[in-house]
């Protein structure tokens, strides 16, 4: 009898997840209805105008979708030259050695630094550098936000790819060595082909992280409602426009911001799903 109560308690607590996710879906959808009714789903996604003036209200998500995609992809590209060597260092060259543990800890700690502290550092250290190089007047914009974001996602990309690289079987590698391959050749023609899809998946998941990044981006992107036209242009991401304008929003504007949240949620969920599917296929 007691066991039965206990078992149903366990079951009930798992229902909590079901309720939370159901509630999230419901709130996002019901909140965005007004905006989608007014502008149409396609119209909302493809319109580049963001005009909160009463009587002339016009909201479109395109500038923020563009800003989100631009910052995330630039961040992803900027993070590869650092995260991939870290993965090789920890997963191949120094696998299991003390020094790999140290580097692993250091890189993991990067994931522990709060986003708002990254934002401060970007604003007071990186922004003046970008500005003094003459790349943009104030040093704010897509590039500065992406550069800081790149640092933030290094740990996510590196730790997963390290795992996949260290999983490549020794027999494969030894086969190549016995044919006279150098270590670099083994990495290039055995390790990468063997766990390429796993490494790819870790970058897909890192992208999923980058898409929703809020604070650091809000502090560094410049917060303008235009579609960014260059790497050093200012803009806004879907997350940063919500962070900036949600507080004082109501009515149609609130609904439009929730609709942007819904779109961001769908994009992030799809990217995460893709990454996890690749990993599942790869580890099977």
């Amino acid at each position: 009898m007691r066991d039965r109560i206990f078992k149903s308690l366990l079951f009930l607590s798992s229902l909590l997840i079901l309720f939370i996710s159901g509630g999230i879906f419901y709130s996002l959808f019901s909140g965005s209805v007004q905006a989608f009714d007014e502008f149409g789903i396609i119209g909302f996604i493809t319109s580049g105008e963001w005009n909160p003036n009463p009587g002339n209200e016009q909201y479109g998500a395109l500038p923020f979708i563009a800003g989100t995609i631009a910052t995330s992809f630039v961040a992803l590209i900027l993070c590869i030259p650092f995260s991939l060597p870290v993965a090789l260092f920890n997963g191949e060259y120094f696998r299991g050695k003390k020094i790999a543990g140290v580097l692993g800890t250091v890189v993991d700690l990067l994931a522990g630094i709060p986003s708002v502290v990254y934002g401060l550092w970007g604003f007071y250290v990186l922004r003046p550098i970008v500005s003094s190089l003459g790349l943009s007047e104030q040093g704010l914009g897509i590039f500065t936000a992406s550069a800081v974001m790149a640092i933030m996602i290094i740990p996510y990309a590196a730790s997963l790819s390290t795992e996949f690289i260290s999983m490549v079987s020794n027999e494969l590698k030894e086969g190549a060595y016995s044919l006279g391959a150098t270590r670099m050749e083994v990495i290039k023609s055995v390790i990468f082909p063997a766990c390429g899809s796993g490494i790819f998946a870790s970058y897909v998941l890192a992208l999923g992280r980058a898409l929703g990044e809020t604070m650091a981006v809000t502090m560094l992107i410049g917060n303008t409602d235009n579609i960014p036209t260059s790497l050093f242009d200012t803009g806004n991401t879907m997350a940063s426009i919500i962070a900036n304008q949600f507080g004082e929003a109501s009515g149609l504007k609130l609904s439009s911001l929730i609709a942007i949240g819904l779109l961001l949620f769908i994009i992030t969920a799809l990217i995460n799903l893709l990454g996890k599917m690749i990993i599942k296929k790869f580890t099977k």
Partner: protein
Amino acid sequence: MENKLKIRKFKDKAFFIAVCAFSALAAVPLVAIIVKVVMKGYKQLNMDFFTETSPTTFEAMIAKASGSLIPGGVLNGLTGTLIMVGIAAVISIPFGIMCGVYLSEKPKAAFSGLIRFLSELIQGIPSIIVGMIVYSWIVLPLGSYSALAGGVSLAIMMLPLVIRSTEETLKMLPSSLKEAGLALGCSYKSVILKILLPSAAGGLFTGVLLAISRVMGETAPLMLTALGSTLVNWDVTAPTSALPLLIWEFYNDPNLVDMIWSSSLLLLVIVLLLNLAAKAIVNKRRTA
């Protein structure tokens, strides 16, 4: 022939050096950020910093004009963080562990698959969206920003982390442990509460520490749920501050901007220590 081999060996060496160099570069930001925050922040760290609430713009302006340190501290942020992380922990730890036990007890059931999928989905939700949702769930009906709303949004972010670490830890226990308990005639409940969970305690503790350190630095969801306050406030239905929220407020106020480094230093020390403690426990268990 000889030459070609030399070139290949040279390339191999160069590649190795490049890997080491870029790996080392990846460690630079951590050091750079810590150095910057410590250098700029340590001066403000005095007793007042921990026992006083945050100064007003006006107080800071006067202090700056006379060239002295900005008075006041971050007590309101510390207590707010304590309350909200406390609420998050009270909700997410028991439910997360129970849900993790459920998943590890029925690993192959279709319903477990669904729960696992949804839990991963929630884990991937950008934190600002969690804030937005909790705003419509709690802030709107209550009519006020509150520590409760902040705590719930942190709980939603913690829950999947606790579930996952619980399930992973329990999965690693040998099944003979459970069978031994059942063979001795223990009830299902006592097998789980007295055998499985205690043997998994170290792993569960690590998971909880990491989850807490992850949500402790969250700013975005709190902006939409807890809002912030200049007072120490123990009423969970009133707007409340938190350490990361204070950093954000200081950053936006030209008179208070000098306070950002000391508050960041404090937050960074707490979060990184939690991280290191969790890591140390994992390493100890591995060698033991």
